């Protein structure tokens, strides 16, 4: 996979500010916001014409779900990847539904042999259908499910040993989890299988009471940026992007956050 460079999650509210950013290597599109039968938004087509790469980001595959993988969801994502000319697709190591209930949220899986086996099976099944590589993201979570027999980096290491998946490293999620669950993010990073790194997510959050919330709706704090800088000193970072989903900032603030990401990733 060729390096992606600097990126951002494309949202209609940010389209004009994104368009005026000439150093973007890629934009990430939310798969659930697109219809495989519709044409791409005009402004995304214009970016593509400029050579900006497309990455499709999904939140609905439930790859960590122990119930059977919803094949129609993978096929829809595959059709979207074809339609958009995506370089890469990504989703999360999590589950989002069980017993007929859709949580609407990325929920943690148990880090044990059963959880790993279901995850590997699902990822392999999805990879067979998808026309481009699949990258998998570490989620933010306030909780760890009981019964873990391995750490999260160990789970990713074994997942990558059993599949061809790549890593979408979310440093904001790592930062949030380190604060909320009380562990050392640097030691976590050192244990991760970074040789599969495809790209990095960064986003803002907010402290509410005792917990840090990864909101994607507040300014980017220094913590995740410092982790990015540390990562870049250790290895080339193939891609790094900003996610902003709500309370959209003005163009100057948005571009300043992109500048900070570009600086740390260099």
């Amino acid at each position, binding site marked *: 996979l060729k390096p992606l460079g600097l990126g951002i999650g494309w949202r209609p509210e940010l389209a004009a500010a994104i368009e005026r950013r000439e150093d973007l290597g890629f934009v990430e599109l939310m798969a659930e916001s697109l219809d495989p039968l519709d044409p791409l938004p005009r402004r995304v087509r214009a970016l593509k014409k400029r050579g900006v790469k497309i990455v499709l980001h999904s939140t609905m595959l439930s790859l960590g779900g*122990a119930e059977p993988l919803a094949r129609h969801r993978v096929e829809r994502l595959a059709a979207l990847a074809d339609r958009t000319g995506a370089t890469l697709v990504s989703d999360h190591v999590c589950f989002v539904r*069980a017993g007929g*209930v*859709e*949580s*609407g949220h990325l929920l943690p899986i148990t880090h044990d042999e*059963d959880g790993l086996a279901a995850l590997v099976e699902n990822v392999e099944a999805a990879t067979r259908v998808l026309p481009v590589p699949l990258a998998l993201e570490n989620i933010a979570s306030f909780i760890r*499910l009981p019964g873990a027999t391995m750490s999260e980096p160990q789970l990713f290491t074994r997942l990558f040993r059993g599949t061809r998946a790549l890593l979408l490293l979310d440093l904001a999620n790592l930062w949030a989890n380190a604060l909320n669950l009380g562990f050392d993010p640097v030691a976590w990073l050192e244990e991760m299988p970074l040789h599969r790194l495809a790209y990095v997510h960064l986003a803002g959050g907010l402290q509410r009471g005792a*917990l840090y919330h990864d909101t994607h709706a507040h300014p980017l704090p220094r913590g995740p940026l410092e982790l990015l800088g540390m990562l870049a000193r250790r290895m080339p970072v193939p891609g790094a992007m900003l996610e902003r989903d709500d309370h959209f900032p003005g163009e100057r603030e948005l571009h300043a956050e992109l500048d900070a990401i570009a600086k740390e990733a260099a």
Partner: protein
Amino acid sequence: VSREDAAQRQRAFLHALVEDDGLHDGVAAERLTALRETLQRKATRRAAHAYAHPARTGWLRRWVEGLRRRLSSRSRPA
């Protein structure tokens, strides 16, 4: 069999989160509450999106309303 065990654990956790009495072995109650609040916030945001685009997102509106109903019924006093 092990996959079915894992599926059962996930169903039990999700049930405790959105439909049951709000407790799950090995998970602190206040963390479950925080997670529930996040689900509510996301549902509210999605609802705003669904009402803004009713023709395209009727399923989303129905899902959001269902989830909010379940979450609010479990936070009512017994």
